[in-house]
C-alpha cells in the first residue's frame, strides 16, 4: 500500500518535472530569437519542410473529407427535403471543427514525427553537442526555426484544408447529386460569419500549431539518445499531440461556441 502511494507520488513528481523542463525549454526557444539575417533563411527552410511538404496530404484529405461530408449531408438532409442547406453544413463543419482538428492530427503524424526523429537523431549523433561546443546555441539554431515554422504553417494548412473541402463537397453535392449551385454557395454565404466561424477556426489552428510543434521539438530534444529512445519519442509526439489537440478542441469549442 505504502509502495503504491510512493509510486503515485513519483509519477506525479516526474510529470511536474517534465512539464517544468518543457516550459524552460520553451522560454529558451521563444526568447532566444536569432538575428534576422541568420534566422530568416533557416525559418524559410523549415517552413518548406514542415509546411509545403505537408501540402499534399492536407489537400488530398481535405478533398475526401469534403466529398464524404457532401454524400452524408445529402443523404441526411434530403430526408427533410432540405438538401439545399448542404453548402452551409459543409462549410460550418469544416471551418469550425474538421479543418483545424484533422489538419493538426495530420500535421502531428506527417511533420511532428519527422521533427522529433530529426532532432533526436541529431542529439544521438552528438550534432547538438558539437554545435554547443562550437559556441552555437542549438536552441536558437535548430529548435527555434522548427518551432516557429510549425506555428506559422498550421493555420495556413488548415485554411487550405477548408477551401479544398468546400470544393470537394461541391463536387459531390452539386456536380454529382444535383443540388442547385446557387443555393450551395448562397446558403454558405448567408450562414458563415467571418468572425464567429472563420476567425475562431483560425484561432484553433494557431493553438494547435503551437502545441503540436512544441511537443514535437521538445520530445526530440529531450529524448534518450538511442534508437529505442528516438522511436519512443516519435511515438510520444504523435500520441501526445493527438490527445492535446482533441482535448484542447473541446475546451476551445466550449469557450467559443458554448454560449455561457
Amino acid at each position, binding site marked *: 500500500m505504502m509502495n503504491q502511494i510512493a509510486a503515485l507520488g513519483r509519477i506525479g513528481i516526474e510529470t511536474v518535472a517534465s512539464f517544468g523542463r518543457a516550459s524552460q525549454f520553451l522560454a529558451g526557444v521563444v526568447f532566444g530569437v536569432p538575428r534576422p539575417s*541568420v534566422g530568416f533563411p533557416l525559418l524559410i527552410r523549415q517552413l518548406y519542410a514542415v509546411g509545403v511538404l505537408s501540402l499534399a496530404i492536407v489537400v488530398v484529405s481535405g478533398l475526401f473529407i469534403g466529398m464524404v461530408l457532401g454524400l452524408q449531408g445529402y443523404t441526411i438532409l434530403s430526408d427533410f427535403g432540405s438538401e439545399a442547406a448542404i453548402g452551409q453544413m459543409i462549410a460550418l463543419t469544416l471551418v469550425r471543427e474538421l479543418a483545424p482538428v484533422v489538419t493538426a492530427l495530420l500535421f502531428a503524424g506527417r511533420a511532428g514525427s519527422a521533427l522529433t526523429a530529426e532532432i533526436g537523431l541529431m542529439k544521438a*549523433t*552528438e*550534432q547538438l*553537442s*558539437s554545435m*554547443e*561546443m*562550437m*559556441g*552555437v*546555441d542549438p536552441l536558437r539554431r535548430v529548435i527555434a526555426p522548427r518551432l516557429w515554422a510549425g506555428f506559422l504553417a498550421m493555420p495556413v494548412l488548415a485554411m487550405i484544408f477548408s477551401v479544398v473541402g468546400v470544393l470537394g463537397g461541391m463536387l459531390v453535392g452539386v456536380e454529382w447529386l444535383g443540388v442547385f449551385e446557387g443555393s450551395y454557395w448562397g446558403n454558405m454565404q448567408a450562414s458563415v460569419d467571418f468572425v464567429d466561424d472563420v476567425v475562431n477556426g483560425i484561432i484553433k489552428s494557431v493553438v494547435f500549431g503551437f502545441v503540436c510543434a512544441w511537443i514535437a521539438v521538445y520530445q526530440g530534444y529531450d529524448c534518450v539518445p538511442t534508437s529505442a529512445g528516438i522511436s519512443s519519442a516519435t511515438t510520444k509526439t504523435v500520441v501526445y499531440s493527438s490527445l492535446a489537440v482533441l482535448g484542447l478542441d473541446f475546451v476551445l469549442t466550449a469557450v467559443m461556441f458554448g454560449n455561457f
Partner: protein
Amino acid sequence: MEPSAYITLKNVVFSRSGRRIFDGVTLDIPKGKITAIMGPSGTGKTTLLRLIGGQLRPDSGQIQVAGLEVPKLKRRDLYRLREKMGMLFQSGALFTDLSVYENVAFPLRVHTALPEDMIRDIVLMKLEAVGLRGARDLMPSELSGGMTRRVALARSIALDPELIMYDEPFTGQDPIAMGVLVKLIRDLNSSMGLTSVLVSHDVPESLSICHYACIIADGKVIGEGTPEQLREHPSEQVQQFLNGEPDGPVPFHYPSGDAASDFGVAGGTV
C-alpha cells in the same frame, strides 16, 4: 621549467543519477602541450571533457579554463569561451545535411563576418591540413570513419582555437587511420601551439604522442606524470592499466553476491 596551466581542476566532484563519477579530481593541464587522460571505459573521461566545456556543471570544486571559472560563467561568456575551444567528438558529429566544405565553413559563417572568398581559402587550408582538400564536395555519409574524424578535426580547428579536446580519437580506427590521426594531433600541436587534451584508453598511441598523462579510475586521479614517469609508477593499479592485465586491483568480476548461494550450492545460505 614548469609550463603554466591552461586548465585547472580542483577537487571536482560530480555525480549523475545517484552515481558518483568524480570524487575529488585535481588536475593541471599545461598550456601548449598534449595531455592524455586515460582510464578504463566507464570512468567518465568524456564527462570530464564536458565539464571542461561547461556542458555539465560539477557538484562542487573548481574548473578554470584560461583563467575563467567555467561553472560560474554567464551563458554569453561561456559561449564566447567556447569559440576558443575545439572538440573532436568520438562520432565526429558532422552535420549530416551539409557537405564536407559546408561543415568546415559552419563555425566561420556563424562566428565571423568574413567574405565568401576568404572563408573558401580558410576552409581549403584546413582541409589541406588534414589531407582532404579533394573531398570537399562529399557528403558525410560518403566518408569512411577515419575521414569523418579528419573532417571533424578540420572543422574544430577552423576558428584557430587555443584548446582542442579529442574524445577517444583512436577508437574503432584501422592502423593506418590511427597513424594518420596520431601524426595530425602531433603536427597540429607543434605547428599551431595548441593546448591539446586527449581522452583515450589506447595506451600505446596516447603515450607515444603526449607530453603528459594522467590516469583516472574510480573517480580519482590514480597516477600522473610524463609517459616515462608513468611507466615507472609504483602503483599496481596504474601498472595493471598500462599493461592491460585482466585481473589485479581492478577486479575481473563485477561486484556480486556470494557465488555459492547464486549457484544453489549447499552452505551458501547467508
